[in-house]
């Protein structure tokens, strides 16, 4: 809604670069030799990724018994990690699709790597449901594949819904990301100097030449994909939450789970975007492209979703009391005071208390503060899943069956390794693909706006428009 007073905003991109400069600054990241730091980083992350593959290999060889699972606690870190990574994978699509539809132009600087992050997070997430089953070699029984054995999956099972929900989400996110990449890939192709590079990028750019018809079709396709993706942002984590909500386990069996999970996912996804943006803008000197203004907006979203999550925590407690269900009531009191209380209070501190700092503009604009908070939020969100998965299972209906769950080396190595995989993929991405959507960034420059009145050219610090 426009207001009557003239609204002067800080520019989205600082330094007023020319179109050419944007192209060269961003393209050069993938054209130059990689900085030494990149090699150091990827050697660390790929070692961690290798650790994950070793852990998985040992898991397949020996059985899921290498993890800390037991009879009441049938799901442990694998499922926690799955939900954690899927949650992180939410921000990308949200930024790409929902913010696109809402015409939030500030998204252009961060959407590309947010989308990439989504894809990599979902890839990490997808590792876990596959490997956590007892007999990995027949995990394909979960797919509705016609077969002579007359087997068919059980469509009442939320795990099956998961298979479709996450599969669809990954496919659509991949298409969305790739479609968005096409104009930039063509730019890289045009700048390419070696034959191989020209060839590969030529194929990937699918004949893009920037013609008007192409732009028209492209923008329509992008809009349609954004339209398809939008409900997915809400559906994926809702479906993931039904893994829990559909069961009868106290602490899982609650109707609040779908919106609560989605809010949590956006919360953690944005936190991860924040962590990565801060690193990337520093590493590749992109401060003009990913400005404080972008970061501050992300912080505001985190503040909002953090409070939504906090609200969900409190309403769970209220319902546990209000329902009069003794099992439910016990579960929640047990979460806060029982054997896993430490996990619960880490969760509350990181997810509810810490984000409150963003009420203060100073803190909201401090890079170190937001960096630390973004990491704490993801720690808290991991613990949220830990609390939900483990504490509910460990102490359910019959006290005689209760047991304590603790992870083993292999639980930890697989999780740490998944970070290795995620970061390795991310490092490969920033090395080989344009990490900022050049074409879109150009679109939000003043020059791209035919109605622009050139008042910001002298770099006066404008009044803050908030």
């Amino acid at each position, binding site marked *: 809604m426009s207001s009557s007073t003239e609204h002067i905003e800080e520019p989205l991109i600082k330094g007023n670069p020319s179109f050419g400069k944007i192209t060269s600054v961003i393209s050069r990241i993938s054209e130059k030799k990689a900085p030494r730091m990149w090699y150091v980083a990827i050697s660390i992350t790929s070692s961690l990724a290798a650790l994950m593959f070793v852990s998985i290999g040992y898991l397949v060889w*020996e059985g899921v018994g290498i993890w800390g699972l037991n009879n009441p606690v049938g799901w442990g870190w694998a499922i926690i990690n799955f939900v954690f990574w899927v949650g992180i994978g939410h921000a990308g699509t949200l930024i790409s699709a929902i913010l696109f539809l809402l015409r939030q132009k500030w998204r252009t600087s961060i959407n590309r790597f947010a989308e990439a992050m989504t894809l990599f997070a979902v890839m990490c997430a997808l590792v876990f449901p596959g490997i956590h*089953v*007892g007999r990995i070699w027949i995990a394909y029984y979960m797919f509705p594949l016609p077969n002579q054995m007359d087997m068919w999956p059980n469509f009442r099972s939320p795990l099956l819904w998961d298979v479709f929900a996450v599969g669809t989400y990954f496919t659509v996110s991949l298409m969305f990301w790739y479609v968005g990449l096409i104009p930039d890939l063509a730019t890289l192709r045009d700048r390419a100097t070696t034959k191989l590079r020209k060839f590969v990028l030529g194929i990937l750019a699918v004949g893009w030449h920037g013609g008007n018809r192409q732009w028209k079709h492209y923008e329509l396709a992008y809009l349609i994909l954004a339209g398809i993706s939008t409900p997915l942002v809400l559906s994926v984590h809702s479906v993931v939450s039904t893994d829990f909500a559909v069961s009868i386990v106290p602490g899982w069996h609650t109707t609040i789970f779908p919106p609560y999970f989605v809010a949590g996912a956006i919360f953690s996804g944005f936190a991860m975007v924040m962590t990565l943006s801060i690193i990337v803008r520093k590493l590749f000197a992109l401060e003009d492209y990913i400005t404080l203004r972008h970061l501050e907006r992300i912080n505001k979203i985190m503040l909002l979703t953090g409070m939504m999550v906090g609200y969900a925590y409190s309403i769970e407690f209220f319902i546990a009391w209000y329902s009069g269900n003794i099992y439910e009531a016990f579960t929640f009191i047990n979460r806060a005071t029982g054997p896993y209380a430490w996990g619960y209070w880490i969760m509350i501190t990181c997810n509810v208390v810490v984000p409150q700092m963003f009420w203060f503009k100073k803190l909201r604009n401090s890079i170190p503060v937001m960096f630390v908070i973004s990491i704490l939020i993801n720690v808290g969100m991991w613990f949220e899943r830990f609390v939900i998965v483990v504490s509910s299972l460990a102490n359910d209906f019959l*006290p005689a069956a209760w047991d304590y769950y603790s992870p083993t080396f292999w639980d930890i190595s697989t999780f740490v390794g998944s970070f290795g995989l995620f970061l390795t993929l991310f490092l490969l991405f920033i090395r080989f693909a344009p990490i900022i959507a050049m074409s879109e960034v150009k679109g939000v420059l003043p020059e791209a706006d035919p109605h622009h009145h050139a008042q910001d050219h002298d770099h006066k610090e404008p009044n803050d428009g908030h």
Partner: protein
Amino acid sequence: MNKEIKQLSGEKFWRSLDQLADKPEFRRFLEAEFPASVDEEKHGVSRRNFLSIMGASLAMAGLVGCRRPVEKIIPYVSQPESIIPGVPNYYATTFPFGRTPLGVIVESHEGRPTKIEGNKAHPSTRGKSNGFMQAEILNLYDPDRTTEVLHQGEKSDKAKFTTFWNEQLAELREVSGKGLAVVIEPHCSPTLANLGQDLKRLMPEGLYIGYNPISDDAARAGSDEQPTHQFDKAKIILSLDSDFLGTEDDNLISTRQFADGRRVLNPGDEMSRLYVVEPDFSITGVSSDHRLRLPRSAVEKFTVALISELENQGLGSFEIAMGSHNFDRKWLSTLASDLIKNKGASLVVAGRTQPAEVHVLVKKLNSALDNVGKTVAYLPISPSETDIDFTNSLHELDEAVKANDITTLVMLGGNPVYNAPTNLNFQKLLKKVTHTVHLSDRLNETSQLVDWHLPRAHWLESWGDAATSDGVKSVIQPLIEPLFGGIGDVEFLNLIVTGENRPGHEIVRESWQKFITGDFETGWRKVLHDGLLASDQSTLRDTQQTANFNRAERTISYPDAVEISAHKLELIFQVSPTLYDGRYANNGWMQELPHPVSKLTWDNAAAVSTTTANDLGVTNGDVVALTHNGKSLELPIWIVPGLADNMISLELGYGQKSSGRVANNVGVNAYAMRTDENCYALSGVTLTKTGNTYPLASTQDHGSMEGRPIVRQATRDHYVAHPAFAQEMAEHPPLRGIYPEHDYSKGYQWGMAIDLSSCTGCNSCTVACQSENNISVVGKEQVANGREMHWIRMDRYFTGETENPTAVFQPVTCQHCENAPCEQVCPVQATSHDKEGLNVMTYNRCVGTRYCSNNCPYKVRRFNYFNFVKDTPEIVKLAMNPDVTMRSRGVMEKCTFCTQRINQARISAKKSDVPIADGQVTTACEQACPADAITFGNINDPDSRVVKVKKQNRNYELLAELNTKPRNSYLAIIKNRHPELEDYIPSLTS
């Protein structure tokens, strides 16, 4: 292997042309199937043995699942009589459990025994079993049993031993057996008793003694009689430290009688009342209506105090000096008045670990209370054994050895180097004897030190006989040739006495000539078939109307107060409810079977009460050193609420060093603390903390019901006032489901009811289920990780205050919910409902998401976290039930309501074209349960037993408020508390 096949004696059976040609491929297969460790190569394989192993491997080809190559098999060309592959045969025999024979029926598949059940015709079992009996099948196939005769550690054979022994015998006979000592274990065999008599006659100068670390000698003190009880006829039962439902030898029959005496069908039905005075918290204590926890040393004083109270209340005069005491007056006087009120229908029993004085007092009490001939009979002991004191006779041997009177020592079974009183130093004693002979099923601590070690046959492999204390005689017939070339007890003792190697069959038949009237062959066949001599259905119990005190009567003086405190602890040695005296130590089922009350597996620990633990500042897993008279033992602490204070309870039978792969170094050897002075308790033991901790594996970490209506219980009076109390304990809104429900109104609909009031928590069902359903043993580490596999587990909850709790048991199996939460969430439909209402598992389809287990509110599903069957020795595979699939790694499993038994009944019903009759299908747990607490059947048949049980108003479904609609239901516990003592907490000073 190759050689071995050529050695095959008798008719050769062959499986394929490859085998006949003895091709290398076949040899490789054979070697893979039967590796050298089975020890077969060392012996010729007899025809019967070969048949059984081959039969097993055929069956195994089916049960190892679809991942193995399918082998071509061909049927028998000439089929052995009565063996139909896939159809088991059943044979009656007898399990000799010390002095207590148990009549059994053994299931045999293609010549290999796979399952033991009680013999319905035999009064000792009436078709029921206990855990020990069930576990015997695994003892038979124990891969650590010895296979050869050893002479001074070198391989020898039976012929060489026979030559040696005849030389010895010639010398011994000349001196009327001077220098010979024969040590036997407690037994119940008329043939062994005859041989013992012969030995005494032929070698009057020799020493014929008995030894077992645990025995009932104390109960026989004062006369040549031993008590047998009839708990079903008693209205008031007082147990003085007697775990008659658990570790006492008559537990099976006692459990049935006790349950019969308390079965409640309607509010107001008569039921017995059980008072228990005990130091430990036994399952008898759990089943009691009133329990007083006292140190072991105070039990005698309590008995005297009770007698004095009875005198005060007008029950004759006992002429026993009485001192002052501080026992709870109200408790004592209520008990005394209850006993007097029920004169002739009361029963006092004392535990075998109590001293002889207590047993004499108890006998006096039963006589004065007019119970003899009514609820207790004192039956004569067989004459050959009257002089044998199994607890103390090693002392006699020790003295004879010290006097250099013994040159030849023969031991039938036992492991005295491991379990003899330490003051005797049996190891040293053995060295002083020139010739030592030991018949033993394993190369244990004793066998390693003797001159001659002979392998002992299992009772399922050898001929023998048995007689119950009331005179019911039966034959032990072998079901299989000795797997490891063992020698039967009868054969061995006959060899020792006569020097002749005679087959056990002949010897037993000979001694049975006098028992069978009429045509011997006909009578003998009938005994073998029935499992007992039918004419023996004895009335001996009813004819013994008096108690004798014919032996020198012990003078009972008022016992001195034994001072015990946190610094001078009392240490009691308890018979293990799982390992007994240690004989089940190499049995994985029994090691993994949780102690009924402490729930510990794979270890013994110093059990202390909560108060004592606080006083001592110790907690679970703290390693402490117990010191007494310079001897010291380091072991971990385990807190068991409900124990007497200032006392440590320690189980015997652990800490073996040389009994096999399962037993070795599990727990600590409590025998190392025992002396023959008092072998069941020590006083003045000091405890010091070592600062170390030791991980213990328990199957249940949480003992409180958290106020949830899980096990429902009421007193008899409350039940009369509120007959529907059990259903009223859980409130819930109307139950409606989303999905349409199946139609369960037609055909067979299987259901189960478990009467918690009858259940004593004895664990028979758990072992029976393990045997029937091939349930894996997972080991201590995996139990500690919470991955035990039992399909029916025994939940134990403490109620009341922590210091002085009562407890309840609840066996939990799959509840076979009609609205099963597990079925809904399985993504691959591996668990589903069949039309008869069973919740079934399709193992082949299971991918192992464990979602079903998470969603099971009863947590009865068991996941194969590893390949638990991978390391099963080949020989142990013979113990497996071929009708039940082995489960691979990564697969979920759970109780199936013994679906294989339902299918067998279905097949036989179909063949004879009649419907399955009520009671034709029994689940393994139901069949085993000595208390008849479990009833299974068709809930669509209004006349079935299960429907009648479920119609009782005590019936409730566990967690029914979740709308799971379980097919299994429970019957609430009724306690017959004395109105005066209801909610009364007795004071504990003594």
